């Protein structure tokens, strides 16, 4: 089976995004000092509409959900559950029953590792991951290995930053779960999700996709992706921190035991026993992040207003511009990790500049108000594979434009002047 191109559903031609115009929707860019924000892979900035929605919720509706029978409690519940439907539509899920609100992507992955995996995996069972995973999709499985004695395998990556899939069928042989990122947070690599899901299903494995870097940037349709679990965070897609999503096929969720115990997740409690609530509430113990859900709903509205195909087009054009202009200006002084072609990657560019440590590069860039991430990006195994301790990473979103790339390119010279004087 030949790997397919990364799945990217095409819809009608979108209105192009102009980063400079979009910036006006984000109050943070009104700071007195210039802000060149190139760290959206860590967290995105927040549009005014999202901030207004959360403030309006607290000012006019605030009440706990699924409890009171008074008006604002019903309004709060309706808003919270309305966002669940909105999320379901945003990711092409057949039903909102399959949308579980979590704290973030990490908690969503841990939910799968605790509930699904501790039900299904015994000593000797195998889980397949990849070398490009974020720690969030490695450590929960390492913990399970220590606890249960499961076997962990990893799909290797090549020097082009793509998965090496030549031995995929052998790696999948006997595997119970295949967990992988749809898009690398370091390399930007877009993985062939559909192909990987089909291969995993043919081998009898279920698939967990880490969508933290994918869902905010590309049109997402879980039935087209073909996965069984999809995890993502609100704060990387113009939403607030503190809310994430686990989507799963309903029959999987129905069969999974509860994760955290407490209020909300029960149908009945007696002194000597309890009955779980229906999905998805079975997995939402305690008061959920209600205002954050409202914010996530507003963030989805905002992104839909721009159009996800337009978001992807915008970021691909910007990535293409960045790859070209950085290389034109800096030549061999810059080493860009990951796939060389913009269509194979999202808007994430990790690089080494003249061997200057990323901390130092980032510190110099900060003087010009340029925010890039420096470090291991919670992917230390990948750093070891790349043979570096850390990288500098620039990542793009809807509010970036070529001038941000130009500012980055220009300021790199200052780092060279300081650390490598002629």
């Amino acid at each position, binding site marked *: 089976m030949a790997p397919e191109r990364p799945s990217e559903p095409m819809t009608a031609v979108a209105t192009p995004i102009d980063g400079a115009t979009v910036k006006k929707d984000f109050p943070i860019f009104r700071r007195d000092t210039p802000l060149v924000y190139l760290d959206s892979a860590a967290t995105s900035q927040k549009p005014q509409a999202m901030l207004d929605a959360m403030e309006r919720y607290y000012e006019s509706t605030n009440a706990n959900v699924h409890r009171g029978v008074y008006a604002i409690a019903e309004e709060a519940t309706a808003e919270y559950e309305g966002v669940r439907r909105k999320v379901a539509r945003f990711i092409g899920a057949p039903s909102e029953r399959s949308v579980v609100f979590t704290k973030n992507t990490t908690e969503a992955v841990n939910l799968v590792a605790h509930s699904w995996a501790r039900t299904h995996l015994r000593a000797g069972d195998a889980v397949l991951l990849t070398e490009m995973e974020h720690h969030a999709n490695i450590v929960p499985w390492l913990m399970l290995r220590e606890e249960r004695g499961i076997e962990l395998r990893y799909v290797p990556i090549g020097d082009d930053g793509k998965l090496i899939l030549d031995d995929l069928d052998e790696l999948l042989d006997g595997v119970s779960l295949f967990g992988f990122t749809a898009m690398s947070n370091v390399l930007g690599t877009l993985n062939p999700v559909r192909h990987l899901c089909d291969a995993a299903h043919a081998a009898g494995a279920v698939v967990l996709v880490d969508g933290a870097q994918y869902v905010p940037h590309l049109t997402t349709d879980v039935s087209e992706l073909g996965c069984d679990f999809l995890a993502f965070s609100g704060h990387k897609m113009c939403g607030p921190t503190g809310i994430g999503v686990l989507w799963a096929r309903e029959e999987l969720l129905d069969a999974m035991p509860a994760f955290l115990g407490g209020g909300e997740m029960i149908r009945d409690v007696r002194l000597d026993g309890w009955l779980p609530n229906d999905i998805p509430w079975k997995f939402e113990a305690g008061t959920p992040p209600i205002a954050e859900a409202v914010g996530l709903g507003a963030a989805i509205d905002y992104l839909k207003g721009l159009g996800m195909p337009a978001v992807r087009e915008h970021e691909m054009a910007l990535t293409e511009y960045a790859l070209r202009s950085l290389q034109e200006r800096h030549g061999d002084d810059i080493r860009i990790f990951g796939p060389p072609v913009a269509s194979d990657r999202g808007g994430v560019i990790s690089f080494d500049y003249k061997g200057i*440590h*990323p*901390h*130092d590069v980032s*510190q*110099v860039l900060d*003087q010009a108000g340029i925010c890039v991430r*420096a*470090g*291991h990006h919670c992917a*230390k195994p990948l*750093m070891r594979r790349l043979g570096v*301790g*850390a990288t500098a990473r620039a990542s793009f979103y809807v509010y970036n434009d070529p001038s941000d790339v130009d500012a980055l390119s220009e300021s790199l010279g200052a780092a060279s002047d*300081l*650390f490598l004087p002629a």
Partner: protein
Amino acid sequence: MSGLEDLYREIILDHYRNPRNRGELPSPPARRAEGFNPLCGDEVVVYLDLDEDGIVRDVKIDGQGCSISQSSASMMSAAVKGKTVSEARELIRAFKAMMSIHEHRLDGDGTEVVEVVAPDPTVELGDLGALRGVVKFPVRIKCATLSWNTLAQVLDEAAAGPERPSEREAG
């Protein structure tokens, strides 16, 4: 905003470009400890050779990191060579005081007490004083203290007895 010249003093850049005491020592007899900065992936390995009188006969630094962590390690190695263990510990304490690292604890009634570790005026920091500017860049303090925490660890292990391999997160 503080200027970069407060952080990247010339002497720091000199130690970064020309690190002193770079390399390894055979271990044993030398003590070896690794420190990691979990935030940024910096790693430092400190090799320490103590003579029978408890004097630092030799010290070597290995690992990788940014200009601040590497220059701090380089200056540290130059500063402790030939010193006694207790002098080395005094240097660690003085350096951390310069980095404004103080002990935080809760009082009996729950109020937070910050015990300010005053720099000991009798401890000569010399070149190390150039790292004073790091305090204005709080994120980088961990870079500057990485090698010092690792040195403290190696000294603790030496005091504890026979060598054993170790690894810890320096913080």
